[in-house]
């Protein structure tokens, strides 16, 4: 049977904690039956960790929900078996299912902001199922609840227990969600994208907790994520999903080093890595996942596969054992061969030497405070200190990355530089002209040369306009075309430039995928031949492969059109792959700035050290930074990072200036380079080892 396999007989006496065979889940839609999960099999033993990775729509979250039978009404499990310690989960009656869920098997969901009930106290939410499952009487459960919160690293657990969810940050809420998940010491914990909504340093803290649960209590963990790095830092084994199917299952390190399914291969190579050569192109594959209503007859990846052979189009491959303990759904690697490594990218053109030419876009001591509405007539007006004195300069033909966690002021900086916001203090210069307080009329002639690309390709395109209308609008508004006909021709050119067909002009945004929409956004920014493009998280809403496509496109355009980019992102690896220079922001200030290669090789500011080491990537020594960034309502005295800094000293009560500490490198720290953590042994096998073989 398709997708099933005979698992090697286990030598242990106990059945595995979770055993899934040939799971099939469908969605009943008006258009027909969508096979969301179509033949997924795996097993997880006590103390084991399994990752499920795939892009959006691959069926990984539906798989996770199916395991606890938490699917919505229109979804049905139509085939396969799920066994928990030998018990058939699909045969459980509602009462049995209730008794099992939350007691022996628990789940942690993606969005901690909506997963907690806003009207109930935290403690109640952590303990109600301890009581309802008859584990403890209420008083005892409350004690355990506080203990669980402490164990999960919730600050001041007694006070937190009596609080309501809205009083907590996202990271703290996810700790509460974990406390809820493990309240009854479940044998199985399913975590569906538990860190996707969190910042990288907070993500590192949560992943540490998950690892701790697995190691201390032997909790079997199934971790679902789109991020291979997250999976690799927690899970020993991984299932790669594509179009509803498991396409590869193996040890995580093996998949990373030597993927045997072409989709896994594409996934691994599309991720920008911190150890790749600077400026290397990312490997991306073209096309999109198949329409789940009309799946191809042969291999589902065949239309996009760079390695396909004749058999792939006609015969659907089953999961085959391609090496001891490794299975893949591929005819090409069925005989045990490896897939070739991606062609070594040509050494990128050396970044244009920065000459003494004046910068294209410059900020001097830029400040932006947002005044909040008064809470009452007599309360003092509170201010959000979004940007607190930023000096930054973007040279011609350069790409400058601005990174930082949410709330660090990077998006506000982008809006100040493009004068969508007016600065509170400081100045903005574009092409040598002061535009700090320029009127809209004065800005108008400059606008074409300074364009912006926004994060959300769904919200930034008007759904009621065709792509052609969206692109024609700026061209006509700025009189860049002699006639409508000429404007339409220009639209065709633009679409070709960003890798879309000119015929797409008559379509509406909803007819495009996320990546295609972001191409349209880029085309709109390019429509007026800009000198500088400020891109605010342009790829963070995209799947890794699409992200690679868009980044490659932006890089090509830079070389062809001589663009300058100011690139705002929270993903350090993306910034490293894309930018010549990087500025790291913390609490509205730049704490470190310099050439990308050098910053990532030898960070100087302790925050940069923590940030770069928090990236979940196998084989990295990690520093998990405690705490969370302070509130922007009241800035701390002295160095803003002091409270979280591992090397803070008395001198840090003085705010450190951003000064040049090495040629071309600036840092705002009294003790730059002092924080170099001792290497810690890394549990997961290093990728470098595999590549050396």
């Amino acid at each position: 049977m398709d997708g099933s396999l005979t698992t090697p007989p286990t030598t242990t006496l106990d059945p595995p904690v979770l055993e899934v065979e040939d799971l099939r889940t469908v969605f009943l839609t008006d258009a027909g039956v969508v096979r969301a999960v179509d033949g997924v099999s795996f097993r997880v033993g006590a103390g084991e960790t399994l990752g499920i990775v795939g892009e959006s729509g691959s069926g990984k979250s539906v798989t996770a929900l199916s395991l606890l039978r938490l699917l919505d009404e229109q979804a049905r499990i139509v085939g396969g078996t799920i066994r928990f310690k030998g018990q058939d989960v699909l045969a459980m009656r509602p009462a049995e299912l209730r008794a099992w869920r939350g007691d022996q098997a628990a789940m942690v969901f993606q969005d901690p902001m909506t997963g907690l009930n806003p009207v109930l106290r935290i403690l109640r939410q952590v303990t109600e199922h301890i009581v309802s499952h008859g584990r403890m009487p209420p008083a005892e459960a409350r004690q355990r609840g506080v203990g669980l919160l402490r164990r999960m690293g919730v600050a001041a657990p007694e006070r937190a227990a009596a609080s309501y969810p809205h009083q907590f940050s996202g990271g703290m809420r996810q700790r509460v969600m974990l406390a809820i998940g493990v309240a009854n010491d479940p044998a199985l914990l399913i975590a569906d994208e538990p860190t996707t909504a969190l910042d990288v340093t907070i993500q590192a803290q949560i992943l540490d907790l998950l690892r701790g649960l697995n190691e201390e209590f032997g909790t079997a963990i199934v971790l679902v994520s789109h991020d291979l790095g997250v999976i690799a830092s927690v899970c020993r084994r991984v299932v790669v999903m594509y179009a509803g199917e498991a396409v590869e299952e193996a040890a995580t390190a093996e998949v990373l080093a030597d993927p045997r399914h072409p989709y896994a291969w594409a996934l691994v190579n599309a991720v920008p890595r911190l150890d790749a050569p600077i400026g290397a192109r990312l490997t991306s594959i073209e096309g999109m996942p198949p329409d789940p209503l009309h799946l191809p007859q042969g291999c589902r990846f065949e239309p996009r596969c760079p390695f396909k052979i004749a058999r792939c189009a006609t015969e659907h491959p089953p999961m085959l054992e391609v090496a001891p303990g490794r299975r893949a759904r591929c005819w090409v690697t069925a005989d045990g061969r490896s897939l070739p490594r991606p062609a070594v990218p040509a050494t990128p053109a050396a970044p244009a030497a920065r000459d003494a030419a004046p910068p294209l876009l410059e900020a001097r001591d830029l400040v932006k405070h947002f005044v909040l509405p008064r809470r009452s007539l007599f309360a003092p007006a509170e201010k959000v200190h979004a940007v607190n004195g930023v000096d930054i300069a973007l040279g011609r033909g350069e790409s400058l990355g601005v990174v930082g966690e949410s709330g660090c002021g990077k998006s506000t900086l982008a809006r100040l530089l493009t004068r969508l916001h007016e600065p509170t203090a400081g100045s903005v210069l574009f092409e040598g002209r002061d535009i700090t307080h320029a009127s809209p009329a004065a800005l108008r002639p400059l606008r074409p040369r300074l364009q912006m690309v926004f994060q959300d390709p769904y919200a930034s395109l008007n759904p009621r306009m065709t792509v052609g209308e969206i692109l024609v609008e700026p061209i006509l508004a700025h009189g860049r075309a002699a006639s409508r006909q000429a404007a339409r021709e220009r639209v065709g050119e633009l679409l070709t430039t960003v890798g879309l067909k000119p015929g797409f002009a008559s379509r509406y945004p909803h007819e495009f995928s996320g990546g295609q929409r972001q191409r349209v956004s880029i085309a709109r920014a390019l429509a007026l031949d800009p000198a500088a493009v400020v891109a605010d998280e342009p790829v963070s809403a995209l799947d890794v492969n699409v992200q690679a496509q868009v980044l490659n496109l932006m890089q090509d355009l830079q070389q062809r059109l001589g663009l300058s980019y100011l690139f705002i992102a929270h993903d350090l690896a993306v910034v490293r792959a894309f930018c010549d220079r990087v500025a790291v922001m913390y609490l509205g200030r730049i704490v470190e700035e310099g050439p990308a290669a050098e910053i990532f090789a030898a960070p100087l500011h302790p925050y940069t050290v923590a940030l770069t080491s928090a990236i979940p990537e196998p084989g990295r020594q990690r520093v998990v930074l405690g705490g969370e960034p302070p509130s922007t309502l009241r800035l701390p005295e002295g160095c803003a990072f002091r409270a979280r800094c591992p090397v803070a000293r008395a001198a840090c009560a003085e705010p450190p200036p951003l000064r040049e500490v090495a040629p071309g490198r600036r840092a705002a720290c009294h003790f730059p380079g002092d924080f170099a953590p001792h290497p810690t042994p890394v549990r997961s096998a290093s990728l470098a080892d595999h590549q050396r073989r």
Partner: protein
Amino acid sequence: MARYIGKRLLLAALMAVLASCVIFLIANLVPGDPVLAQLGDVAASDPAIVARWRAKWGLDLPLWERYGIFLTGLLHGDLGISIATHRPVLDDIRQYAPATIELATIAFLLSLVIGIPLGIAAAVRRDGWIDSAARALSLLGVSAPTFWLAFMMLAIFYGGLGWAPGPGRIDPIAFPPEGPTGLFLIDSIWSGDWEGFQDSLAHLVLPSIVLAAATIGLITRTTRAAMLDSLQQDYVRVSRAKGLHEWAIILRHALPNALVPVVTLGGLAYANLLAGAVMTETVFAWPGLGRYTFTSAAALDFPAIVGITLVVSITFLLVNLAVDLSYALLDPRVRR
């Protein structure tokens, strides 16, 4: 929490003062002269009589002075003398208000007791028979004209089947229960008049159902919509993953979140029931504020109109205060 309550109370007091001002001004600035309505054509043609009559009611004083007198009276609990009945307006209101308050409150409780559970059931069994039945009932309640519904109820349950008593608050030959409140249900309990209690309750059944019909429909639909929204939230899925019983999920997790819009609507509905019972009171010969309002308005009895309007707006304010306080009870995010 205390701060929140204090803030709401202060705001309510401020609004009450503002309302008194606006009500007084509107009543005194609208065109329409009570002289003609009260004195009749012959007397109104004699300037001396008109002048004396105006002086008697203080209508010859400048507006600001009249407002001053009105406010001073108000502070002493004096709403003035009714031009039509020649009794203190407060006494009139005291006589008629309890009947309306009793009717509106029972109708309101009925709307909640029927509307909320029906809305919950309709949401939980979405597209099932109970959802369809609730939808039909809501539509009927909202769209049936009050007078028609009132006559139909009377014709069927009083005239036809004889299950319910006829119009009025109690049996015409019985004595009203003695008590301090004027609310017959409470007064009869207070005086230990068991028969009076049964009689009053029986008389309340038909008019309160008629009055509540539209409100039941609105509350059912609002509860259903809010519950459907609430049941789709992530925390409900988390509760399922905890293995909680379905009813615990519905009542403890989904319902408190769904109640906020219902409370908003409920507050408005209660105030509307109080102020809008005219039709029902007329058909059921209910000696309430609605009928008093109607006669006062017809007679251009300004002191009475101002008094009633003031009472109604203060009721609105109190109900709004109650709504605001329930928000704080229901949703901790509001308590600031």
